[in-house]
């Protein structure tokens, strides 16, 4: 400083103007820092929101159910005696109970205050001796009377909104006339009764104290003029049974009648064949304490005196013969079941035992989602239609009104991933079938076939992509001339950018039918093209140097392109010849008839090829990077020691780059697993579990795309689709992160070398 004379500039740094300027710059800097920090962190948080939102939607599936008592009150109009039947209206505001004397009392569920009382006019001296409910959606039940008759009753509700407040007016209907139907002409009391209703017919089956069985079937006919429903009796005969009936159940198919006998067995009557289908003991030395039809009328819930409950249903075997099968046991406490009720919209039921325990089960999931102890001896339990409330009547004449939060009982580990024996199936199986037209459908939420389909599609895609991409990348990175490499790399990147919807469309509408026509040719390609490449390579090596030197080193792929095109074309051309020679003219028919392999036009092979195409660039570019960044002095050292190019490649380059290649395969696999459009368009989307390359599959992602728009928001199906998305998210994220860590380690390793 002292050597050169510098005039100090005449700037006064403390000039207020400059101070202000500095201050404002400082403030601006601070503002920028804070706002960029805020913005950056919130963007990152927004991205993590995806994870938490998916979790938030999935969590209720696995949240435990809960129950709390809302109120407790003594029986409304307790002087009329205990209830023999109760029911609740849709909203859970009103409930009713039926007494032995044929009085129906409607009351408010929240405090037990009586709303109205209806006399069913059963007649003087006639009392109710048995009761049974039909399908809960019909809101209909039947009363067996002491004079041998039966009365069908329906509880209905009129909902109005005066002043925007919901008002529910309950009333009683007699859908099939208010005159009771005589079951036992002799007039003995009906001690057990059952009612099955469909849109076309009703069937009433009852037994009396003399243990005779009566059945009446009526076909509903609509009067064309008045539109009224009329009942036409249809004669049915009941085969004589060989044991004393204890309780009786008619199923809505109106073919079978199940009779619990006092010998601890279930006797099945086949009304169609007018014969006894069989007698099925429920176990050694076991007595039936309770038998109920589960929702949909396909399954029986049977409880024995030891407190064991089990599910049974009719299974059809290969010869079209039906047998009653013991499907599953429920994990119940060993106490006698005193009351049961089924849920109205799900395959669930509630059991109450003699110790006052109330337990909720789901039959498909074989799960026990909720238990509580009432601490009272229980007479009856009644589920609300939406399964959000339950009404419990104690033997002491008290009513307990409980609120339930039991949203997703049908989900359990076994229901999602295990083999489940669904109603109507001959054996336990993995099935995905989420919806059907009817209300009492048993949803089949097994994710196994979808996960299997996902892995199958990914496997075949990787089978196509991995060899092509890795071999291609090795050549491009190590052998190829730089000028050619500069053209090949962008082409492969372009391949990555191709929208998958186009690949899917071509796979589904062009490649699938083409391959079906030229199946032998496609397989011939796999053999002929490599042979042609090798043959050309060998010939080329043996050509005179003059010709060989026309093409510079590292341009071999350019030479091979016509070879590939011609050999590929040739193998497809000889397809009909091969087909005639080996497969009697039609390979597809041959596969199905001779080899016994099912063939779908849109199959795993098509998906493998199309998705392989989508995955090749991912694997290619990462592998290429990894190989290309292997330090040159390593390879040069190896070559200098006399190794051939190929030896250097295998012994030096590959081991060094192998973590990078591994991570390339992982990332490629992540892409194949999550790919949606290709599988959606190039497979038949049938959720089957079969490794056959000629059959299709349904993947998790395609399943989401197909079913998500139709699923009910907040429902079990909706949440399971979220679960599928969450599984996909986690899988790809974990795989990619793992691969990324490997690559980073590789990079630091290179920097050391």
């Amino acid at each position, binding site marked *: 400083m002292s050597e050169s004379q510098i005039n100090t500039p005449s700037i006064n740094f403390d000039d207020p103007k400059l101070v202000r300027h500095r201050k404002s710059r400082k403030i601006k800097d601070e503002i920028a820092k804070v706002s960029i920090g805020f913005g950056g962190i919130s963007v990152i948080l927004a991205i993590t929101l995806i994870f938490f939102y998916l979790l938030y939607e999935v969590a209720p599936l696995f949240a435990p159910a809960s129950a709390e008592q809302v109120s407790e009150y003594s029986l409304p109009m307790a002087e009329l005696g205990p209830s023999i039947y109760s029911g609740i209206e849709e909203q859970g505001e009103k409930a009713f109970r039926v007494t032995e004397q044929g009085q129906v009392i409607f009351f408010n569920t929240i405090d037990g205050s009586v709303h109205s009382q209806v006399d069913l006019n059963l007649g003087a001296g006639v009392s109710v001796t048995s009761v049974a409910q039909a399908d809960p959606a019909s809101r209909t039940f039947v009363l067996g009377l002491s004079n041998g008759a039966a009365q069908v009753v329906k509880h209905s509700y009129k909902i109005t909104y005066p002043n925007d407040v919901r008002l529910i007016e309950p009333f009683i209907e007699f859908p099939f006339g208010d005159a009771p139907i005589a079951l036992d002409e002799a007039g003995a009391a009906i001690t057990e009764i059952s009612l099955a209703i469909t849109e076309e017919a009703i069937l009433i089956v009852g037994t009396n104290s003399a243990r005779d069985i009566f059945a009446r079937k009526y076909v509903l006919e609509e009067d064309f003029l008045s539109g009224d429903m009329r009942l036409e009796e249809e004669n049915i005969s009941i085969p004589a049974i060989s044991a004393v009936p204890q309780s009786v159940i008619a199923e809505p198919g109106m073919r079978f009648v199940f009779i619990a006998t006092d010998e601890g067995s279930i006797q099945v009557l086949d009304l169609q064949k007018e014969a006894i289908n069989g007698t099925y003991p429920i176990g050694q030395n076991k007595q039936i304490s309770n038998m109920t039809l589960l929702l949909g009328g396909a399954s029986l819930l049977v409880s024995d005196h030891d407190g064991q409950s089990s599910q049974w249903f009719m299974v059809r075997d290969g010869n079209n013969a039906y047998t009653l099968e013991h499907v599953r046991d429920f994990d119940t406490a060993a106490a006698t079941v005193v009351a049961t009720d089924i849920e109205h919209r799900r395959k669930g039921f509630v059991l109450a035992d003699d110790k006052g325990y109330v337990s909720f089960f789901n039959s498909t999931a074989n799960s026990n989602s909720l238990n509580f102890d009432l601490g009272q001896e229980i007479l009856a339990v009644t589920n609300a239609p939406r399964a959000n409330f339950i009404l419990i009547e104690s033997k002491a004449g008290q009513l307990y009104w409980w609120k339930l939060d039991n949203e997703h009982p049908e989900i359990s580990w076994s229901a999602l991933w295990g083999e489940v024996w669904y109603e109507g199936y001959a054996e336990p199986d993995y099935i995905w079938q989420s919806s059907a037209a009817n209300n009492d459908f048993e949803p089949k939420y097994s994710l196994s076939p979808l996960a299997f389909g996902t892995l199958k599609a990914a496997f075949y895609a990787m089978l196509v992509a991995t060899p092509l991409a890795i*071999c291609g990348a090795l050549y491009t990175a190590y052998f190829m001339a730089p000028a050619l490499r500069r053209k090949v790399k962008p082409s492969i990147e372009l391949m990555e950018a*191709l929208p998958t919807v186009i690949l899917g*469309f071509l796979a589904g*509408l062009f490649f699938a039918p083409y391959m079906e026509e030229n199946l032998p040719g496609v397989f011939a390609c796999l053999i002929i*093209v490599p042979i042609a490449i090798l043959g050309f390579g060998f010939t080329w090596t043996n050509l005179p140097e003059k010709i060989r030197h026309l093409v510079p080193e590292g341009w071999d792929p350019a030479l091979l392109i016509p070879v590939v095109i011609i050999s590929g074309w040739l193998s497809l051309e000889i397809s009909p010849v091969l087909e005639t020679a080996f497969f009697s003219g039609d390979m597809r028919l041959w596969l199905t008839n001779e080899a016994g392999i099912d063939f779908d036009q849109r199959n795993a092979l098509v998906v493998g090829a199309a998705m392989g195409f989508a995955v*090749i660039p991912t694997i290619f570019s990462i592998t290429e990077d990894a190989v290309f960044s292997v330090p040159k002095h390593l390879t040069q050292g190896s070559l200098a020691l006399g190794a051939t190019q190929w030896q250097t490649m295998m012994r030096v380059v590959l081991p060094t780059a192998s973590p990078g290649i591994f991570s390339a395969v992982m990332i490629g696999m992540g892409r194949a697993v999550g790919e949606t459009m290709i599988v959606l368009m190039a497979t038949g989307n049938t959720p089957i579990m079969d490794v056959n390359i000629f059959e299709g599959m349904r993947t998790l992602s395609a399943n989401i795309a197909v079913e998500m728009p139709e699923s009910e928001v907040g429902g079990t199906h909706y949440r399971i689709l979220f679960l599928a998305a969450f599984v996909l998210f986690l899988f790809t994220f974990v795989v990619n992160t793992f691969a990324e860590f490997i690559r980073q380690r590789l990079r630091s390793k290179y920097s050391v070398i």
Partner: protein
Amino acid sequence: MRVSVKKWFNNGDPYVWINAGAVAISMVMVFGLLALIASRGLVHFWAHDVVQAEVEAKNGQVYPIIGELVESEMVSAVQLRDAGYTVPDNAEYMQRNLMKIGNRDITGADFRWVLDASLTKRSYPEDIVVMERREWGNFYGYLKQVKEGDVLIAEGRAAWDEFQARIDRALDIYTEIHDIEKGEIGAINSGMERLRLKQRGYELKGTATAENLLAIKEDRALLDATYQQLQAQLIGLYEKINRDQVVVANMDGTEINVDLAKIVRAYKPNAMSIADKIGFYISKFYEFVSDEPREANTEGGIFPAIFGTVLMVIIMSIIVTPFGVVAAVYLREYANQGAITRIIRIAVNNLAGVPSIVYGVFGLGFFIYFVGSGIDQALFPEALPSPTFGTGGLLWASITLAILTLPVVIVATEEGLSRIPRSIREGSLALGATKAETLWRVILPMASPAMMTGVILAIARAAGEVAPLMLVGVVKLAPSLPLDGNYPYLHLDQKFMHLGFHIYDVGFQSPNVEAARPLVYATSFLLVVVIALLNLSAVSIRNRLREKYKALEM
């Protein structure tokens, strides 16, 4: 120098050749695919010659056929015999042709497979007429008469010129009708709907005073009056357009009447010169990119899909650019470069690998059902129960794709930032600039090509993405464009059409896949071209950028 097989294998050369073969196969696959799409997509607009011939059917009956040859394939004789054809004993396989015979209203199907050998007496008569119609697909046959009501106007050779003149007139009237129906009546409908919502809004707020209601009533009466006027105008136009008919004969000589109002275009392909055909090609291609779809998307243009895609991508870029850049700047310039930042970086990078359908599920659950229904409750209670933002639409689709492409932008911008040499930052700071000033004046301008690259890649990805859009607001046929002359002009809540979804829908959900296929190829071709151009430009920008910084590092 002769090399023995053994030595050749010992050298390991065959494996190198196999590797080279893999590259060759990949290249053949990429360019073969592009060539396939291009050839199939581009021939769609060409005026193919129409052949007239006689066909011998399976039962030996001979009938005349008129149609375009679409494709031919070799079928083994066994299959044909199984299908009931009589095949010469010495033939092992035979050629089978797919012919487009049109006339769906008469024959029931547009296409027919015909054995090449059974096609006899082929000719290409110059006066075969092809008519594109608004319903029932193409017509192939002969023009007989032009009629006005029941009055014969022209017949025979003179009919063709008369026919062309009258088609032009009908098309002009059609355009007029279309403008009134879509434009002016559309505006009235949207005005009516706004008035209805306004009234409902008053009722909900309890401000439905007589004064307010009267104002609405007056507005409505005004709109009604305009509507009546337009309606009268329309009736007049419909009368005019329905004036003319033509009588045409199909391949077996059946004569039918066709209203000129239903005809889009008529031409005689066999009489056209190459120049004519090129002109025809250009006009068909223009129709394809500028017109609305007809006949359940299997004919006509794809303009609404192009428009929807472009608009969605623009909105997406507007959202994704600032957020992506801010996040990248934060990660690279402000955050402490520790383990956490490294983890965040890897996580962001990996989000690009999360399946797109997962973003779709997120968009549906979070934006539509959660945020969207919240907005509806708060801001649009008068429209409930029909949802405004509580259903898929342009806005939610754009935001979902913005989140999907956010990692792309962040990664590209970060890469650009990391390539700027430290010395440049330090130079700026040493001269007394604050960090914000350095960032704003030096770093960001230098990194702007990288940001461009990121945004272009994001656009290319968004334009081709379909799976998430299926969940968040794309439809097969939107009644109107999301941008029009009716308040509020840009309808963010509206569902829209998209090129990628169009391909999926027309290719797989269409009742007449065979007829729709050329159009799907053409759409695919357009989409591929757009995406390829976007990608190539991103690549070239990136390469230029790298060169630039190489110079800086010197």
